[in-house]
């Protein structure tokens, strides 16, 4: 599965997005730990390969509805680190103009991104509707969304996949199976190991992928996207990974066995891809360092921009509730 038809340039691009995502996340977590953040925030550490690899398989015209651990997807689709960090700090220059917290409300149709819906997994049926509109208008576009292992327990998950299947909606559903929903381990969430097997119940393909291997995620998503674009309907892709930090910033995740984390740290998706690129001779250490450096500068700039941005004017409280 990890064989993909990516060129050297594309692989380096993928690495850049993963690196940017990781560094943004690291600096964000450090920022909150220093007590400078506002409200709560979610780390996506460990999810880089999923959010970047899957989003990379989309065309600009395709629509995506990310969730709270898909920072890489937002970045890759063109929401700048500046706008995201400003959103985290509740500033007027943030994506939601200070209206919504953390990665919630980070939608922008200019980038074909549907803002995240906190009530899990309501982004899923909305994405199915997006896909149905493509079919209705005969547009060769695809919609994609993400759900967690936890959110895949909700009735809506089942209703949505059934609906998508019946209507052959061009939709790709990525399940980010990171083994914990807040504190709840998989075995208290469901009685199956592979969520992908549920696809059989809806008559659609279900695929299991190594969620820490960006090329594997890309390849599986690309196949599903192509399939959807050909008019053959939805695919369920389960990416296996591990949530490396707590549910949100305040959560120390003491309930997660340390050995499990150590086991997954060895599969660190960013490092692993970096090592593969080096081993394949596609990059040298100098290039890696240069990319990292570039990402660091970008994120530092975003933080500075966010810090210096103004808060929204309280006089504007009642503005923006209705579309003109």
């Amino acid at each position, binding site marked *: 599965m990890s064989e993909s038809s990516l060129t050297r340039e594309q692989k380096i691009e993928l690495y850049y997005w993963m690196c940017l995502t990781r560094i943004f996340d690291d600096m964000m977590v450090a920022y909150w730990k220093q007590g400078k953040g*506002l*409200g*709560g925030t979610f780390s996506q550490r460990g999810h880089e390969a999923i959010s970047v690899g899957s989003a990379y398989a989309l065309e600009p015209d395709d629509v995506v509805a990310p969730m709270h651990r898909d920072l890489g997807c937002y970045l890759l689709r063109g929401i700048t680190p500046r706008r995201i960090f400003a959103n985290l700090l*509740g*500033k*007027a220059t943030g994506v*939601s103009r*200070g*209206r*919504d*917290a*953390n990665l*919630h*409300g980070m939608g922008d149709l200019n980038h074909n991104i549907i803002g995240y819906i*906190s*009530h*899990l997994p309501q982004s899923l049926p909305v994405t199915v509707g997006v896909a149905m509109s493509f079919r209705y208008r005969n547009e060769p576009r695809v919609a994609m969304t993400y759900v967690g292992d*936890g*959110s895949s*327990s*909700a*009735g809506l998950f089942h209703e949505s996949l059934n609906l998508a299947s019946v209507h052959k909606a061009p939709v790709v559903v990525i399940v980010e199976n990171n083994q914990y*929903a*807040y*504190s*709840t381990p998989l075995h*208290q*969430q*469901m009685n199956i190991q592979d969520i992908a097997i549920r696809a059989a119940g809806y008559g659609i393909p279900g695929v299991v992928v190594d969620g820490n291997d960006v090329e594997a995620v890309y390849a599986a998503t690309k196949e599903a996207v192509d399939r959807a674009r050909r008019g053959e309907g939805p695919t369920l892709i389960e990416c296996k990974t591990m949530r490396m930090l707590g549910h949100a910033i305040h959560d120390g995740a*003491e*309930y997660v066995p340390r050995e499990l984390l150590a086991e997954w740290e060895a599969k660190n998706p960013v490092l692993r891809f970096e090592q593969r690129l080096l081993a394949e001779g596609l990059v040298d250490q100098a290039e890696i360092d240069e990319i990292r450096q570039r990402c660091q500068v970008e994120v530092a700039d975003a933080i500075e921009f966010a810090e210096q941005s103004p*808060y*929204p*004017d*309280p006089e*504007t*409280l*009642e503005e923006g*509730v209705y579309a003109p």
Partner: protein
Amino acid sequence: MTYLAAIREALQEEMRRDPNVLILGEDVGGTFGGAFKVTQGFAEEFGDRRVMNMPLAELAFVSAATGMALMGLRPVVEIQFADFITTAFDSIVQFAATNYYRWQAPVPWVIRAPADGGIRSGPFHSQNPEAWFVHTPGLKVVAPGTPADAKGLLIAAIRDNNPVIYLESKTLYRSLKGPVPAGEYVVPIGQARLAREGEHLSIITYGTQLRESLAAAERLAQEGIEAEVLDLRTLKPLDREAILQTVRKTGKILIVHSANRLAGVGAELAAQIAEDAFEWLDAPIRRLGGADTPIPFSPPLEDAYRPDAEKIYRLARELAAY
């Protein structure tokens, strides 16, 4: 004792007293004890059989609680944030609320829903959903504003044979302390409490805004304005007599709640007062509540959105001068 500790104590005591009482919700069990740690240590004492982690599926587990309640159990359901109660709305308002009316089988569950904002948690984690439930026949709705009431009302709710929506203030969880009677302490559902006596005007409130209203009343007192503060404690059924009494006493009414003002509980109160006590009013009824917007995240916006002691003080002063 903190507001949170009072909730915890009520749950603990009721579980020890009655083996039919059990807890279900996301992350409530094991060593975790819920997103706000209300049930921390419970699984140790009562076992996973009585403190059950639920999959992320509110509609399913709230409906399951209804099934359990029909079999004589007394499930206490924790909704992680009150906002997510909408996911189970269907089963609450259609089935659980109307069940006794339709075929006389009681549904004695309690849903604990951490409500309210003020802690920068954005539109999806700050809502006050009481009006939806007050509008629904067959439910009872309580909203404690003190640690003592948090305990007493929860015990009453658990013992009540009807579905009770217990709205707790996550704003107050750790920030509000107060005396809590030890052991069995029941605050009857449906009784308001005069939290402060006064002559010049009445502030009618509940939940988080009780603290803000009392703070405003303190400030008013320094200026010689004595505000009476009526804490409703129960929103459904309303304590009509206590409301009328304070209207007859002061003739000036300010209603305060955190939820959106438009069509909120305050609107119903104002209508009832206008209908039943018009001749005692010395001024137009005033209301403070949230703006007609989603609850914003950014501090200046959220502060502009919410009532607080300062806003209550200003409006009360105007009203007193009317």
